[in-house]
């Protein structure tokens, strides 16, 4: 028997004027999957992700989280159940790192102890001593690590990430990608990550969805995409990192010769 889906989209649509940003998407995501949602700017990937925590309210269809229609759940309660990380990071500048991490549980009337905050910081590979600092004293990569720790504080089953590493330098970006991948395994999360970077999607995800014009045009495992499946739009996106990787490999060989 297949397990009940963690997340299900049922003919979800969202228009902005005449533009169908999301156009009748149906999709099922099983618990434990790491799904990358890839596409060009304006393909609707970010809008689709935000229908899950209702930062965008769909005007057609339903989104089911662990079998329940998200429209029927109280908004605040729904959002506290979902971890959300986004490019803007959005740490509260007037709160310490520890207070930022503890904000979700605090809203639910629960106080996070010092040990729990230290534990969450360790999960994202930061010193527990950082809890007392203000966000302005942190580097960009450290801030996004705190953003991830904040998303995990409510012990969510589902982690939503909207271009989470978009504003970071490549080294920080790779390191944080690995951290997130490990946490995904260790905490048995279901993860949906929006990115425009196909290489990142192929390296981190277990399943890659390609969006174009509000529709899902490919839904493949990374190795299937690399093997040439998924159609023209997907292959166009795959071609870029493959070409770069090929040229880099060639340069390495030439340098060695």
């Amino acid at each position, binding site marked *: 028997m297949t397990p009940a889906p963690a997340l299900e989209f049922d003919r979800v649509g969202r228009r902005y004027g005449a533009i169908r940003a999301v156009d009748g998407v149906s999709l099922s995501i099983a618990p434990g999957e790491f799904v990358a949602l890839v596409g060009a700017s304006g393909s609707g990937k970010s809008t689709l992700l935000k229908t899950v925590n209702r930062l965008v309210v769909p005007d057609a269809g339903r989104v089911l989280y662990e079998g329940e229609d998200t429209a029927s759940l109280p908004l*605040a309660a729904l*959002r506290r159940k979902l971890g959300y990380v986004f490019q*803007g990071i*959005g740490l509260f*500048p*007037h709160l310490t790192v520890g207070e930022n991490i503890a904000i*979700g549980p605090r809203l639910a009337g629960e106080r996070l102890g010092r040990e729990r905050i230290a534990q969450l910081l360790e999960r994202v590979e930061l010193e527990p001593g950082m809890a007392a600092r*203000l966000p302005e004293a942190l580097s960009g990569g450290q801030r996004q690590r705190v953003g991830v720790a904040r998303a995990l504080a409510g012990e969510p089953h589902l982690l939503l990430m909207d271009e989470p590493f978009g504003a970071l330098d490549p080294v920080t970006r790779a390191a944080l990608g690995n951290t997130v991948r490990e946490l995904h395994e260790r905490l048995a999360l279901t993860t949906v990550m929006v990115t425009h970077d196909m290489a990142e999607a192929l390296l981190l995800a277990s399943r890659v969805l390609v969006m174009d014009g509000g529709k899902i045009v490919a839904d493949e495992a990374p190795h299937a995409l690399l093997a040439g499946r998924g159609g023209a739009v997907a292959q166009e996106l795959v071609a870029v990192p493959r070409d770069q990787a090929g040229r880099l490999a060639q340069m390495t060989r030439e340098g060695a010769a």
Partner: protein
Amino acid sequence: MSDFWPLLLGLGDELAAHVLLSAAAIGLGIAMALPLAVWAGRSESVARVALGFASLVQTIPALALLALFFPILLSLRAVFGEGLPTLGFLPALLALALYALLPILRNAVTAQANLDPGVIEAADGVGMSRWQKLRLVEAPLAAPFVMAGIRTAAVWTIGAATLSTTIGQQSLGDPIFAGLQTQNWALVLAGCLASAGLALSADLLLGLIERGFAQRRRALWLGGMVAVLLGIAAALAAQFAPALRGDARDTVVIGAKQFSEQYILARLIGQQLERAGYAVEYRDGLGSAVVHSAVTSGAIDIAIDYTGTLWTNQMGREGNPGREAMYQAIVEWKRDTGEARVLGRLGFENAYAFAMREDRAQELGVRSLADLARVAPRLTVGGDPEFFERPEWAAVREAYGLRFARQRNFSATFMYNALRSGGADVISAYTSDGRIAADRLVVLEDPRGALPSYDALILLGPEARRDEKLVETLQPLLGAIDVEAMREANFAVDREDDKRSPAQAARALAQRIGL
């Protein structure tokens, strides 16, 4: 200037009243601005309308805004009943609070608009309700900017509050207006320094709070707040402690318009009442139009007014029936309307008259208004701002065909200086003014009787007129002051050397008339 320090230190009551008025106005301004700013943050059109209104208010001169609340409150009595105060604290509070609105509102709206959208998305993303978002994120992040707006508002309000003297609210404007009137520059300076010092202190303390918010240093903003609250508490204690000690006798409030004679006569009446055991309070520097409404509405108990003023301004009559007939008409009019009562005349007239320097009058061959008409097209006439709006001015111009080259407004004090320095050739002087004799001025004759008489009289408000002991106490003043006595008293206050305070001049006057 040796008398400067005692003057400054003697401003305790005015300072306390000023602090309370300003604090209440800023508090009310904050209470209006903050909810409005939150609403404006949710709706573009509310933001436009609210900021537009606040800016509009700001374009009204503070003095006019304060004065406007008198008729507004007067008409609101239809709703709130006769107990609604129309002068003093309430109108000053409302006008100043409106004035404080703009900087607070603008800063709060701007702060909200400039919040990092990422932070707002995060607040939604972690599941904050609207209220939680406001309380936990928007308010603390906007606080330093809002505080900067409050700081600006505080400095403006403390400055503008000096003008509330004109509508009968005690403030640091009292010494400024009184000093300006009596050319007592030490008094003006003391009032200005006290008000500037207060504004700077408020700015400093509110600045501490602002910095505390911006740098998230609790000790700093809490300390600033405690200091502000202590200041307000001290002012409250100073204002209300005497009343709590049981000194709260029924106080008689005496109003005075903005010139020396009024200050002196108010003190003369006050000192007479104090000898009879009354507690007395003065409302100095009231606008001329305000005084009559104030005494009929009971906002003040006693006022000195003049027959000609009441005849034209309050009764709306034209022409000049002659001195006695005019007085009788006013007494009857007051008896019929039944609000205030004419107690009686003091004995002298303070009429408008045209005066020139003796040498200049001789040189031009002018002895009367009829002579003046010939040379007027080459001359400059100076008058107080009220005069050129008055029907007497129209009547005189009509009767003699007067056309001047130029017309200039001066406050009463500066009019005489202008005449001396050649800034004006003719001025609208007052017959009881001591400077007419002292400056060797010629009062031009009025052969056609165009200028009405101005007998000084005492008006009693609704409460005072029923107080038989009070009426009895003031009887000896009636008919007791001739124009020479009044001129001498006025000159003692107005002259530049060996100046007397209005209270000192009043005591000398009392002695002279044998009280």
